[in-house]
């Protein structure tokens, strides 16, 4: 993989070698060749890392990231890195980030309102172990929706900053969200039955602003109420208001918290989940799609026969 960047920017790249991580400062044309080599070396190091990680590595990963990630994954390897990263740039959370499969739990779910309990009785995970019987909309490759996409399937996250908005891109399902930073107000009543109210969206309507030099705050409203808050199928209404905080801790670390407020369903606001993301050295993540035809083939070939009562 040869990555050539024309911009005359100073660029710091690290790669994880078997013996010692090294740091390169590169310019211009040199950027082309060296990035390619590093990408190849980093990639081959990952691919050939068949030996399971040591206990120390896993402990370091847990210390840095709050959860160590699955052994052998890119996330675990990045979390286990002991090199001191550079400082956080100001007002910059852009780049590609490696995350775990799922966020760390925040607060316990608060008590539900009567309406919340009613929704939960109709729309919740049926707990079916077998995929063929499960009612998780993900199994049909339906959209994750927001904020579930911020707490589940977090393996790759990319952020691009434009003059009037920030784009948040998820590796899973190639989801992209627009977060407006031009000071516009979020729509009122999005997703409600009020006349003229904007339709709800799977990924809502978002606006964001900086809090200090290194934390970007995102507000989201108008999410579609057929999506689940989490894998447990917890419901939410379209009145849900989500606050995400993206804190650039240092050059290589992005801490994200997701707070949920939905007075129609939950008695009080609560922290849904937190994640520590790590800078991806080669700045590229995989394509990870849920493909309906393959999902169906899996259900027919494996899930249904495995779950069949005989």
């Amino acid at each position, binding site marked *: 993989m040869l990555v050539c960047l024309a911009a005359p920017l100073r660029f710091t790249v690290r790669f994880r070698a078997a013996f010692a991580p090294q740091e390169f400062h590169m310019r211009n044309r040199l950027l082309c060749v060296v990035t390619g080599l590093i990408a190849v070396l980093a990639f081959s190091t990952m691919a050939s890392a068949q030996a399971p990680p040591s206990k120390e590595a896993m402990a370091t990963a847990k210390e840095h990231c709050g*959860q160590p990630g699955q052994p052998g994954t890119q996330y675990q390897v990045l979390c286990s890195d002991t090199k001191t990263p550079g400082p956080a740039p100001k007002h910059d959370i852009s780049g590609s980030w490696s995350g775990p499969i799922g966020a760390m739990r925040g607060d316990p779910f608060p008590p539900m309102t009567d309406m919340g309990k009613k929704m939960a009785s109709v729309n919740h995970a049926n707990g079916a172990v077998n995929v063929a019987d499960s009612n998780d909309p993900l199994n049909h490759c339906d959209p994750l929706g927001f904020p579930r996409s911020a707490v589940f399937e977090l393996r790759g996250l990319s952020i691009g900053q434009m003059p009037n908005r920030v784009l948040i891109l998820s590796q899973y399902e190639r989801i992209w969200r627009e977060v407006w930073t031009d000071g516009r107000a979020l729509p009122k009543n999005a997703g409600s039955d009020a006349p003229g109210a904007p339709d709800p969206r799977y990924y809502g309507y978002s606006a964001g602003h900086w809090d200090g030099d290194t934390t970007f705050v995102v507000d989201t409203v108008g999410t579609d109420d057929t999506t689940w808050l989490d894998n447990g199928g917890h419901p939410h209404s379209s009145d849900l208001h989500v606050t995400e905080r993206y804190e650039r801790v240092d050059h290589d670390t992005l801490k994200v918290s997701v707070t949920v407020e939905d007075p129609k369903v939950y008695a009080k606001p609560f922290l849904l989940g937190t994640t520590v993301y790590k800078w991806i050295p080669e700045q590229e993540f995989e394509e990870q799609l849920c493909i309906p035809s393959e999902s169906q083939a899996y259900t027919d070939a494996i899930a249904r026969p495995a779950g069949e009562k005989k």
Partner: protein
Amino acid sequence: MRPKLALAFLLVGILAVCGTAFAHHGNVAYQDKPIDLKAGTVTKFIWTNPHSFIMFDITNDKGEVEHWAVEAGSPSALSPRGWTKNSVKPGDMINVTVFQARNGNTVGRLAKIVFPDGKMLHDSQDRDTQAAGAGAGAGQ
């Protein structure tokens, strides 16, 4: 909501958001002990999220052809174990160690496959590699 149901709901919610013990669904449908299947002929290999799967035919002791479908991890889980999308092709001959479905159907969860030249590929959930790595580690 009844208290017990609420508690179960809460537990599922907790486990769901906690990223460490992740599974879309469990392996409850499969036996605890694996079995070895010899001389399977691959008919299909689907390299996909969230579960890859291999379909192969085995001729059993009675001379009947059994059609098997065995699931494994996702591409990103299998890659660190040495898999690629070309690791298995239709027509390949493989020996398969599999956790068969409890209901006796010819489906299951892969433990590992062994090629005629001795090369092994382990599923992402398989722990054999760790044990083998600690010992002589032959046949890897």
